[in-house]
């Protein structure tokens, strides 16, 4: 805005009084000076007209009605209270609520989080799988639902069942012990009855190591009589007397081993059970 003096008023003074002039608070000499400046100044005159026109345009704007739901939405978003519903509840007669209904309402409120979890498909699937696995395990173990029905849960019955089960276990253990004792006795008896075949060093000739045999020689057949069992009695003959025959000796016991008249002594050896 060009700042020059016209009719005894500068333009910036005119600008400062513009709102007061439009509000009608100017009076007297100040108002006359203002009006004179507006008539003579080429910048401030049109400005005053524009400002006045703008204000008149704005007078045409009336207030708009807020949406009907605005108050309810505000109250619901601040206090969480829906006043429209409250008003309906206040105007309507209040039904009597019994203590059972209150308990149900409380229970439903308390169970809401749990029930919400249970209602999820994932939980239902897991529960179904667990139930299936349990039923299979019970059927494999031989437990029948009919048996469960006959179970008495009285303390005396539970105690009775406990002692019965304990006695059964002890009896089973004792039976096993008896079996072991019988087996041990039988084994001892066999050991006493069965003779030893020979000493281990003699009875087991040097075995050929077939795997490491690289001589390509034909394998010698085993001179063992398979018809004889290890438990069979093995008879062995041995000359009674010195092991070295001396033809010059006068000892009656020193006889020719080829002489068939010599007495035969049988020696029984036992073969050890393995």
């Amino acid at each position, binding site marked *: 805005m060009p700042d020059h003096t016209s009719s005894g008023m500068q333009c910036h003074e005119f600008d400062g009084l513009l709102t007061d002039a439009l509000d009608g608070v100017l009076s007297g000499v100040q108002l006359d000076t203002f009006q004179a400046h507006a008539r003579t100044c080429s910048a401030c005159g049109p400005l005053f007209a524009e400002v006045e026109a*703008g204000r008149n345009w*704005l007078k045409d704007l009336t207030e708009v009605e807020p949406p009907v739901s605005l108050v309810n*939405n505000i109250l619901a978003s601040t206090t969480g209270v829906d006043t429209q519903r409250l008003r309906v509840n206040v105007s309507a007669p209040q039904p009597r609520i019994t203590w059972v209904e209150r308990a149900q309402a409380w229970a439903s409120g308390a169970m809401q989080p749990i029930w919400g979890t249970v209602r999820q498909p994932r939980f239902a699937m897991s529960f179904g799988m667990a139930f299936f696995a349990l039923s299979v395990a019970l059927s494999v173990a031989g437990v029948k639902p009919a048996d469960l029905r006959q179970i008495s849960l009285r303390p005396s019955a539970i105690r009775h069942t406990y002692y019965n089960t304990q006695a059964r276990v002890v009896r089973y253990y004792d039976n096993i012990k008896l079996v072991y004792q019988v087996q041990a006795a039988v084994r001892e008896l066999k050991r006493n009855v069965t003779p030893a075949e020979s000493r281990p060093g003699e009875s087991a000739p040097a075995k050929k190591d077939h795997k490491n045999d690289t001589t390509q020689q034909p394998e010698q057949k085993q001179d063992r009589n398979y018809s004889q069992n290890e438990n069979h009695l093995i008879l062995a003959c041995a000359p009674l007397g010195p092991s070295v025959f001396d033809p010059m000796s006068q000892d009656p016991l020193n006889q020719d081993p080829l002489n068939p008249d010599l007495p035969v002594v049988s020696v029984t050896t036992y073969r050890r059970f393995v």
Partner: protein
Amino acid sequence: MLVRRCVAGDAAAWEEIVQTYNRRIYNICYRFAGSADDAEDLAQEVFIKIYRTLASYDSSKGAFVTWVTTITRNLLVDHFRKTKQDRITDSLDATTSAHEDAQPLSEQIQDQSAPPDQHVRSREVQESVHAALARLSPELREAVILRDLQDFDYREIATVLKVPEGTVKSRINRGRAELARLLQRTYRQVM
């Protein structure tokens, strides 16, 4: 008293506050934002903010309506800053205030020569003024709205806008003049 009751937890007092001020706040939001949907959302946000900060209101510093309007104005300015980028993008298709010669409002205003009746004409004038108001800069717009639409005095406006009274008067004058220029240009083109 109402505020004290509300701070003490009186729900009825809060409802009374909402009933008293919702119209004023909605209108400020509507005139500033330009659309009814935005105004409804903004009004709700304003009341949520008031509800949360109600305990901080000091009656010795000013009237409750001034405090409420200050909160509203601050929230509107924040909203304007947030959506400024969107408007800049939109303005590529529309004309700005610096290029008003390219028919800024004529596309939105019907032919004024033969209005069906006075009521329709009044409604159309209101729509054109509302559209012109939305084209003002935020500083001029908020000053004009508070003065000419909400009837605040200059001191209250200065408190709300946190500027001197002289600046408030200057902004009001510039806003009114700019609005008149926009509307005169529009009607001259239509006529």
